[in-house]
């Protein structure tokens, strides 16, 4: 099943890129321009997708392809991890860099099942240490 889904996604992505690249301009005298390489890549993805679909169909017949079973709790944790990173710019603006980093560490640690007794000092320590190493020691502005 996963190979079939991969193949389907590849063919759809290839088709989408092909058609979108068709809107790019060409060089004078009709020679290909900025759309050439995206279209070559799109063709490659499309054909690879077809090959994966064929492979997936063969594996399904042989019952070798793994079936995907999403884990609901896992999806929630995954979404949480993504959200806390995506919100970093907002957190940084509200609470400052060190606090934002500490919050990210705390959130991820808590979602991974670390007890608060360990997670809180780890979060504070990593936020301060990472900030000091980058900003003060290495002079990389954050």
């Amino acid at each position, binding site marked *: 099943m996963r190979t079939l889904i991969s193949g389907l996604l590849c063919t759809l992505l290839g088709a989408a890129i092909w058609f979108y690249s068709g809107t790019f301009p060409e060089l004078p005298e009709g020679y290909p321009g900025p759309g050439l390489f*995206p279209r070559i890549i799109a063709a490659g993805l499309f054909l690879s997708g077809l090959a994966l679909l064929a492979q997936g169909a063969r594996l399904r017949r042989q019952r070798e392809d793994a079936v995907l079973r999403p884990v609901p709790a896992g999806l929630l944790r995954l979404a949480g991890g993504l959200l806390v990173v995506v919100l970093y710019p907002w957190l940084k603006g509200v609470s400052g860099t060190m606090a934002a*980093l500490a919050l990210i560490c705390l959130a991820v*640690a808590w979602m991974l099942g670390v007890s608060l007794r360990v997670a809180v000092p780890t979060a504070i320590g990593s936020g301060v240490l990472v900030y000091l*190493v*980058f900003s003060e020691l290495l002079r990389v502005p954050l």
Partner: protein
Amino acid sequence: MGTELFSWQGLAALLLGGLYGAVFGAIPGLTATLAVALFIPIAFFLDPIIALPAIIAISSVAIFAGDVGSALARIPGTPASAAYVEELYDISRRRGPVYGLGVSAMGSSVGGLIGTVLLIFSATGLAALAAKFASFEYFWIAVLGLTAGVFASGGAPLKGLVSLLLGLLFATVGVDPTLGYARFDFGIPTLLGGLDYIVAMIGLFGFSEVLEHLYHGNRHAAGVLPRIRGAAPLQFYIRPLRLILREKWLVLRSALIGVFVGFLPGAGADVGAWVSTSFQKMTRRSEAHLDDEQDRVLLAGASSNNASVASAWIPALSLGLPGDTITAIVLGIFLMKGITPGPLLFETNPSLIWALYLTFVLANVLLLPLYGFLTARLASTLVRAPSNVLLSVIAVVCVVGAYAINNNTLDVWVMAGMGMIAFLMRRGGFPMAQVVLGMVLGPILERSFMVSAIKSRWNMLAFFERPIALGLALATVVVIVVGVKATRRRRHTGAGNGAPLPGGSD
């Protein structure tokens, strides 16, 4: 000659430069190039015979130190390191990071020494060869590297090809090299500069690992680490050196690949490691001893990687053409100090040249083994921390590393997006490293193709008319033939066949 190098200032510059490079290289998001760039204000006030060796020390150690992220958290420090990230991570989990980083450091030392010897004895000759490379040759070098990358994905070249195509697609984001037309920017000005491959690497390898553990919860927590027998010096120095002696021809071949591909200005360093590791994977001797084969792949990549550090200086010293971004910075320092690079440099400033040669030798013989051992010891302590605590810190490092490159908020989102893409790719059994290879070589491939096509008025036969270009095209065909044969052989013996890659998920 080189007496200033052995003054207390010179030795301090070497030791501190190596330490600085080790810290920078080990932190995801910080690169050898950034380390050298931040060193420029200090270099301005130093004598060139002190400043330039310090830069060599920084870059030599930082290139190796990028493997620390690979060993600990599967985050490669450079695109070249991505060629063997899975092997290094697996070896570090099974046999300890001290042994894994020992193979990397000792392989880098020996490869770097071979590169230095070639730098000393054949710089002018190789530079003359580099001067013959035009857009046609660069195109075929890129194709060769990409082809090698496809077959470096083990038993699933089709999935390796898809990963490569994704990387090439990401590389098309931004302004195109022919008309300056903005592609796939979706109205976001920051995307006009394209996607940074370092940010992509952090997301694909580092943040995806965090997402993987979040999804699986404690079921995916690393098992108890095996008890590692033997003192740290034995694991870091003796066992890897025994491996090198046993595989001396592999090391020599890989180092030569690193040198001969790495000396091409602007193109070679990353390609060398990929060609070396791919060649090793395609020609692996036995399906029954995958542990030993992983050691060989790691050795091939590490020795090629550091050999190319020295070879990047060949066009810089001999022709004044930078071999990579670090030598581009160095040429700027040359100009600041009133030194003109080129063939006459060897006659007008021999003490500087010999100081550089000596530094390469010292960096590979002393600094790499010393700082490599210290970072490996630190890594062996860190790896014993509970994985869920370590991952929460890795998440922070990923965010900061992505932001620090360009001080750009969008890079943090790109990093998160790449992490999610990698998470999905792992579900499908697709390799990650080929995405990075595509992002690095894509611009070179497209630019050289378009320049060549326009120069030749779209006469495609022109891609085969020059002897070096034809040779590289034939080498690509050889890689394809050998790769297909190796894939079929593995399928017949029951390995590969789209099976999960080392370290990948099901």
